[in-house]
């Protein structure tokens, strides 16, 4: 339905007033089948995220099958340091929170809230990554690299794939800061910020499964 039709039906209103009169609650839009672009974009990106989760579930299934196949090498109990994992978990959880704060700041066009919260999110994300890289390097250094056993192959595939996602998410985060800086809080830029925040929150959900299945259950065995 075009804006011209709307004004024609209602008579000679100035176009500027039409914008405020046109606004209706979300529910009515959904019933009429006319949904805001923000909701359509979110839905499309949600389907991508679900397909990513399905891919991770294959890695989880592989890990669950191979977690006992240590080939005489070290098991999870020997390798995992739960203190490190707890700090990694705290980093990701707090970064998820600040990412949410940043998305509110973007919608409110509040510079301090948006840039500040995005910067804190980036710092927590980088902290998580450096801890994980340190952990991986330590394991490889004592001969427990991905080629040692089927268990370690599955471990590095699963946890490394999550780490790769966090790395890509960090790059996307910096890109979104630069885009808002260069182009302002435009509606299309805000939709990209929405997609980024969905992506970042989903990484945290996958991390919940990793720290439960891999680390907590692995260290308890």
């Amino acid at each position: 339905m075009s804006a011209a039709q709307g004004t024609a039906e209602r008579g000679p209103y100035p176009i500027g007033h039409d914008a405020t009169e046109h606004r209706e609650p979300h529910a009515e839009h959904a019933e009429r089948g006319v949904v805001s672009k923000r909701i359509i974009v979110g839905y499309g990106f949600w389907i991508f995220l679900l397909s990513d989760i399905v891919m991770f579930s294959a890695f989880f299934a592989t890990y669950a099958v191979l977690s006992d196949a240590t080939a005489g090498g070290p098991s999870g109990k020997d390798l995992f340091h739960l203190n490190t994992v707890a700090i990694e978990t705290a980093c990701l959880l707090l970064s998820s929170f600040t990412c949410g704060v940043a998305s509110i700041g973007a919608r409110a066009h509040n510079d301090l809230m948006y840039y500040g919260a995005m910067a804190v999110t980036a710092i927590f994300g980088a902290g998580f990554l450096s801890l994980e890289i340190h952990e991986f390097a330590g394991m490889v250094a004592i001969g427990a690299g991905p080629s040692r056993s089927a268990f370690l192959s599955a471990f590095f595939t699963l946890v490394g794939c999550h780490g790769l996602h966090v790395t890509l998410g960090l790059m996307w985060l910096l890109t979104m800061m630069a885009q808002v800086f260069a182009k302002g809080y435009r509606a299309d830029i805000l939709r990209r910020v929405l997609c980024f925040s969905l992506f970042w929150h989903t990484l945290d959900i996958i991390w919940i499964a990793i720290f439960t299945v891999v680390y907590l259950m692995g260290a308890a065995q």
Partner: protein
Amino acid sequence: MSHTNRGLHLHPGDTAPGDEIAGGREVVEGLLGYLVGLALATLITVVAFFISQTTLVWQPSIPIALFVLAVAQMGVHLVFFLHITSGPDNTNNILALAFGVLIVLLLIGGTLWIMYHMNHNMMPMEQIMRMQQ
């Protein structure tokens, strides 16, 4: 409404719902939502780490407790961080999520089921080695 927004938008004067600038009340409500989510998620995480290390509870119950806590925390994240709600705007998201969960359960459950029985029916590794000699 900002004139900059209108000037850059494809359809001037046709700002979609959800694209308006969030006001003071929306900001406070949004922050409160994220704070509640953070508090709940932190609580569940701390309980999970505590339970995995404690000797106070019956040991075989620990994996089940960890699994339940993980599912609960995923629910908290979905509702408070990803805003998957039961509202009319979210019907499609919920259906997609339900389909995703179905595929994940089939994939993980099916894999574990099949591999358990294959391991069960396999000859023990020592016997295979003995036959090769």
